[in-house]
């Protein structure tokens, strides 16, 4: 493999601002593998939840999750999270028709990396102390940077690897950071996205917080009772418009804005007024140089938990002004679950699908709308021609991020 070009991470040479376009998108979720299967599922609001089969949940409150059915051929000895990451990258890479290179930064979001390997390591360490068989491999491949390096090796590229672990906003932060690298001219192209596989520790963690729904994930429903966990990966090939045009490649859409803000209120609960969510959305709009009323659709974080949805509803209402602009909102988490570190990335891809294919993804499970929702919630398959979409992601620890995507013209 060619060696890195000799550039430095700091100081960064100031360049003129570039337009940032998406030339490849790959997605793996419980709805299926690839753009087509996922687009059809999101368009119709198909719910892909089922009983958990990956670990024992018999002693827990919640029993369902949105598991991915991985093809047996995809294993190659990798753990589940790496397989998800590889599959999504393969689709994005092929679509973008990218060539390997030595100047390609990789920006990933994840919350767990290879958590299932960490769990296996611990189980063996306590049940058979001193037995080393398989343990060094688990230690190595558990770490997200090793999974990222394997990805780089598999696709033959090199460049700085940045792994952002901002809980459930990780994926949006990763895509946002990648967008900034291209827009500022620090990179001509960046591979970015998020991934997370279901793991027992994380499932039990959300269950212990009583944050998991025991019925069905129903974002913005007055009687919502929690979130549903899923797994998957979504990857995006970002490049400067000039670079994409020079290659003569198909442009799928454009990222035009990114905003991030921190909420110091509580480790697991948002500020009830949604102040940081509002700040992130406002910053993203400002960054995109658009007014909130120019947004045609908001893909909400919409977890289905009482606290998140009420704070987000207030923040969206505040963003849309008084009287509020009639901007349709929906959450796609009832379909594929909360993908944690991949959530922001897959929701960016769903937003891209809406822009490309002319529909709005419904939140089909919501019945009676929460009175706090002063905006229309999309609950049925809807034809539309959105030009500009806002995608929200909020996480534990007060991480808030928003992305603005636009139809390319």
């Amino acid at each position: 493999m060619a060696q890195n070009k000799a550039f430095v991470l700091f100081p960064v040479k100031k360049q003129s601002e570039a337009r940032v376009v998406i030339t490849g998108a790959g997605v793996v979720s419980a709805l299926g593998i690839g753009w087509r299967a996922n687009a059809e599922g999101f368009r119709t609001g198909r719910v892909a939840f089922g009983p958990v089969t990956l670990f024992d949940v018999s002693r827990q409150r919640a029993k369902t999750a949105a598991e991915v059915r991985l093809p047996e051929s995809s294993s190659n000895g990798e753990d589940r999270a790496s397989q998800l990451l590889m599959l999504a990258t393969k689709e994005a890479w092929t679509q973008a028709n990218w060539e390997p290179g030595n100047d390609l930064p990789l920006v990933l979001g994840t919350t767990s990396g290879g958590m299932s390997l960490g769990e296996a390591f611990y189980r063996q360490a306590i049940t058979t102390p001193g037995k080393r068989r398989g343990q060094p491999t688990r230690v190595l491949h558990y770490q997200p940077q090793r999974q990222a390096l394997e990805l780089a090796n598999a696709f033959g590229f090199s460049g700085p690897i940045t792994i952002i672990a901002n809980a459930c906003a990780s994926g949006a932060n990763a895509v946002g950071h990648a967008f900034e690298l291209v827009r500022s001219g620090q990179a001509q192209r960046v591979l970015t996205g998020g991934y997370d596989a279901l793991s027992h520790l994380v499932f039990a963690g959300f269950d212990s917080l009583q944050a998991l729904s025991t019925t069905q994930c129903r974002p913005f429903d007055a009687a919502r009772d929690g979130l549903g966990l899923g797994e998957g990966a979504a990857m995006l090939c970002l490049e400067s418009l000039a670079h994409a045009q020079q290659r003569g490649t198909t442009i799928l859409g454009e990222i035009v804005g990114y905003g991030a803000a921190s909420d110091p209120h509580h480790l697991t609960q948002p500020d009830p007024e949604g102040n940081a969510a509002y700040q992130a959305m406002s910053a993203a709009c400002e960054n995109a140089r658009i007014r909130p009323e120019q947004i045609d659709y908001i893909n909400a974080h919409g977890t289905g938990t009482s606290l998140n949805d009420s704070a987000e509803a207030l923040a969206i209402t505040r963003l849309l002004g008084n009287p509020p602009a009639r901007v349709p909102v929906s959450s796609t988490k009832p379909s594929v679950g909360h993908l944690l570190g991949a959530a922001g990335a897959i929701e960016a891809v769903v937003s891209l699908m809406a822009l490309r294919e002319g529909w709005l993804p419904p939140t089909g499970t919501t019945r009676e709308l929460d009175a706090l929702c002063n905006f229309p919630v999309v609950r049925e398959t809807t034809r539309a021609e959105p030009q500009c979409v806002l995608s929200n992601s909020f996480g534990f620890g007060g991480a808030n991020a928003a992305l603005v995507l636009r139809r390319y013209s």
Partner: protein
Amino acid sequence: MSAVAVGGIGVVSPAGWGLKALRETLASGAPGAVQKLARPGLEKPLDVRQVPAPAQRPACFQHPRLRRSSAITRFAVSAGLEALGKNEVARFGIVTCVMSGCVQYSRRFYHEVLDNPAAASPLLFPETVFNAPGSHLGSVLGNVSMNYTLVGDPGTFLQGLALGATWVAEGRIDGCLVVGAEEVDWVTSESFRMFDKDFLLAEGAGAIYLREPRQQSEVTLECVTDSHLYSGRSRLEGAKAMRAQLPAADLLVDGIQGMRRYDRAEIEAWRDWTGQRLSPKRLLGEGLMAASPWQCIAAIDALQQGRCSSALVSVVGCNQQAIGAQFVRA
């Protein structure tokens, strides 16, 4: 702006709490004490270097967010507050870097899950998340701006420095606190020993506060090299490529810790170095993401004390990248 200034430094290490303890240990050249950490299921304990209990409980630990927090959070907050000192800024960012992260609570929580998931503590789980230390630090400081947690091998701390410095240089924020932190647990100690039985895992944190330069004699971060990945090349090749990007300087602060096999790449890359040299990890142990800030802080302190006018930091990370930085004092 082509350089950003170091507005403050803070450190927690096996030498103790604060810069003074680190400075004294580095000056003495005497390795810190080694503790024995019980390994459940085995008679033989693990050798580690832990942070001693503070002589006086830091006042910041009374903050409501720190009541149940783990060691790594306390290290990160303490180092961060020391680095921030009396700097008052309206718009500041935080970049927290970890490798193993909140491993103590993760291990405890998962153990409870295996015992009985229905009884696993909801208080522990949120503290297992990678960004818990950065979030607590942000909450203590009332931060509402950028707050990233980066995960990677110890070289990631220098990536974090570059990110924070870029935010400051671009004027997006007035200052940025860049923190690296780790905590020791038998799980991580045992894990690293699988690759070299001499691994002496250590814990602590280091923080560097970056802001715009204000006066001539300040220490500035001049450059962070490219991230020289170990993809398709060896650690030695990565280390040599990193070294080739760094300019001449008076002082080198390396990551050598006295483990022949592990240190080989870095020793080879700097074989012909004839200037002053410091190797903090020889005295403090392998602090992973805490160790690279210790190196940076040793370099910055030497510059601030007038012992040199330019210093290099070399981080040949364990499984991701070799990366270096240069600090100078005009």
